[in-house]
């Protein structure tokens, strides 16, 4: 019986741990420098917690196997050992807190600093159950918004104020084309409830909190089309609320903007 239990405990431990090593199910490719540093932090955390996980289960299985009734003599009479206790708790404290402080460094570059100057600003607005992406156009300024002017049929889902000249050249789209290797600043808003910006390949996520603007910045360095899947429960269509981050060559991006402007000026 003890042998069976020990095998079960060790077997479970191995079954959980092995896919982390073989990376059978792993993170999707990382498409920014920041995403790769996050990956390093995740790998480091995996190694440290993995060691503790395996040691704890080895010990648990060992006690089950060797300290059963067949053991000769009485159990050891001991109330513990303060030195071991202090050593173990200090080690755990240093390890855990050290890990998160290291992570802060990884994180700092992107969250403690604002977007670099010259970053392309893109506004992303969530609504049940779609994303609206807005570009400020050649003037670099977003037009003011007025919720009374929202009209999905006439192509003004955000309610860009018709009287504001800054809004004349604003472009809205259902997907999010961006030029590769250029810093992008995303301004997050919502029309209704809380949604969340989430592109796994960027290792970034942020809620669109009603009444607040959220800010994120990234520089994608690989071209491709990546799904942007809502990550905060927003209602019955949450599961299908998605858009696409389309990372493209700058020339292609410029051409896309020009085409959108032409569409807009056409009657």
């Amino acid at each position, binding site marked *: 019986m003890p042998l069976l*239990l020990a095998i*079960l*405990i060790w077997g*479970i431990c191995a079954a*959980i741990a092995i896919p982390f090593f073989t990376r059978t*199910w*792993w*993170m*999707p490719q990382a498409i920014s420098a920041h995403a790769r540093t*996050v990956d390093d932090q*995740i790998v480091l*955390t995996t190694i440290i*917690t993995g060691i*503790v996980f395996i040691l*704890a289960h080895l010990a*648990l299985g060992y*006690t*089950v196997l060797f*300290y*059963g*009734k067949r053991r000769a*003599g*009485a*159990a050891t*009479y001991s*109330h*513990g*050992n303060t030195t071991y*206790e202090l050593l173990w*708790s200090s080690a*755990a404290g240093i390890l*855990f*807190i050290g*890990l*998160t402080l290291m992570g802060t460094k990884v*994180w700092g570059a992107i969250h403690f600093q604002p977007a670099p100057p010259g970053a392309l600003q893109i506004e992303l607005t969530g*609504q*049940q159950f779609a994303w609206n992406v807005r570009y400020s156009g050649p003037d670099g300024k977003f037009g003011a918004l007025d919720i009374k002017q*929202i009209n999905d049929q006439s192509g003004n889902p955000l309610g860009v104020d018709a009287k504001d000249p800054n809004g004349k050249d604003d472009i809205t789209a259902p997907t999010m084309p961006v030029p590769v290797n250029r810093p992008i600043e995303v301004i997050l808003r919502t029309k*209704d*409830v809380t949604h*969340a910006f*989430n592109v*796994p390949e960027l*290792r970034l*996520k942020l*809620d669109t909190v*009603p*009444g*607040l603007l959220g800010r994120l910045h990234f520089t994608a360095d690989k071209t491709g089309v990546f799904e942007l*899947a809502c*990550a*905060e429960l927003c*209602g*019955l*269509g*949450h*599961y*299908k*609320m998605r858009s696409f981050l389309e990372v493209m060559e700058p020339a292609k991006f410029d051409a896309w903007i020009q085409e959108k402007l032409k569409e807009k000026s056409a009657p």
Partner: protein
Amino acid sequence: MAESHAHVHAHAHAAPTSFIRKYIFSLDHKVIGIQYWLLAMAAVIVGMALSLLMRLHLVWPTAQMSWLESIWPTGAAGGVMTPELYLGLMTMHGTIMVFFVLTTAPQSGFGNYALPIQIGAADMAFPTLNMLSFWVTFVGFIVALAAIFVTGGAPISGWTGYPPLSALPEAGPGQGAGQTLWIVSLAIFAVGSLLGALNFITTILDLRAKGLTLMRMPLTCWAWFVTAILALLAFAVLLAAGVLLLMDRTAGTSFFVPGGLVVSDKIINHSGGSPLLWQHLFWFFGHPEVYIAILPGMGVVSQILSTFARKPIYGYRAMVYAIVGIGILGFGVWGHHMFMSGMSPYTAVTFSVLTMAIGVPSAIKTFNWIGTLWGARIRFASPMMYAIAFVSVFVTGGLSGIFLGQPSVDFYFHDTYFVVAHFHLIMGVAAIYGMFAGTAYWFPKMFGRFMNEPINKIHCWVTFLGVYAIFGPMHYLGLAGHPRRYSELTGVKFLQPLEPLQYFITIAAIATITAQVLFLVNVFWSMFKGRRCQEENPWESTTLEWTVPSPPPHDNFAGVVPVVYRGPYEYSVPGASKDYLMQTDPEGAAKPAH
């Protein structure tokens, strides 16, 4: 001694004679404890059934289940589950499990049953209040059930009920009467928990037997004590938040809803509120709630490991400090649920460091459990099996917290299945193993009969395999970026390669839920037909509940006041006449413990 007698009698009440006063509106803490335990058992059956339906829908979204239509005519028209029904089941699964199972059985159930006896009292400090706590909680459960079946459907905003989704009836189906009932249910539950917490704290501080100093209390009592303090502070905040949310919905206030929202093409007539206020209030309750669910399990497991290892608990003082430390730090970490809400990075770092710090007392506990087993002479009875399984699950669930507590890593894992795996293992499965262990351990005391040992052991290890088969793969789903709370897996392309894992999880869930029939049948069969337990102390334990008959008389000690001579875990004391010395055993009491 004469004074102590008077003290006990002041709190005792006459044994009831009518059926209703004996079993329904009983003042006896033992009956109330069993009532809470049965309530949790009823709730866990409902909660499991809801999760089973969710798992079935996830992998067979178009399957027609006509019986489903007869339960929810609109939510499952044609027998196919709608997204809103899925989200309603999900909300109610979380709510019922967290409140009516994880908060109800470990603290109010076992605490009510065992705490007064373990400290040598005839009853809780306020027996009438105790009865009231249970019946208030019961009403809360009925209201929660009503929220599942009400016209318009169950609320779809999850157990966290974030506004504006939860504040605006326009925001979706189920956000009408269902959401209102949900809030009312939580508020009622909070009131019941507050009353219970006051009772626990007073009982522990005032009614301990002579010689039972705080540092001689069983670790179970320490866990119930700290949990009661957490409940007192946390449920007060939840109650307040619930009242405010209810007012936003019904009285036109705007605590949680800002201006300028357009929901379903309708301009919302609210202004000035903040959804973040709800998140802060909710998680100020919600994180301590995790410890409310798990601390009693930690106490029970410590008690059982020591008993069946025939060894004193390793590092009793460290265990007490760890429980208290978890309790204090537990109120400083709620922000880690909100890293993604636009929180200042400086605030996030503070919450992160505190979160990592709370890993230390948890690590101390794990270290001490393994230290207790090291050099033991283990008796493999079923309570011990459940306790050993608890340690494994606790370690696994705890370690994934080290990922989620770091903002840099959480930006990837937040709101993915990784989080689902984490909290189910640490807060759900571990706490439930604590309940299994407690049930098997105290069953002979509660009913004067044993549970069937072989069935318990099979149940323990089949469930162990099962929960790892369910929640293990969820870590991999999370690694692959799979968002949680998706009612269907077809809306997003990158989820498609992960479907085999989802199938595997559903199959494992079906098997594991089926295995719970073993436990349920064992409980109810053993209650009436199990092997009789004639002796007072079948496990050769050391604490006070094992000095009284099984089941104990109405006032526990029949008017005799127990005197305590030593700490709770004196096993295998060298030179003693047997391999355990009970707390009330005067043998060698003059000598110091070492």
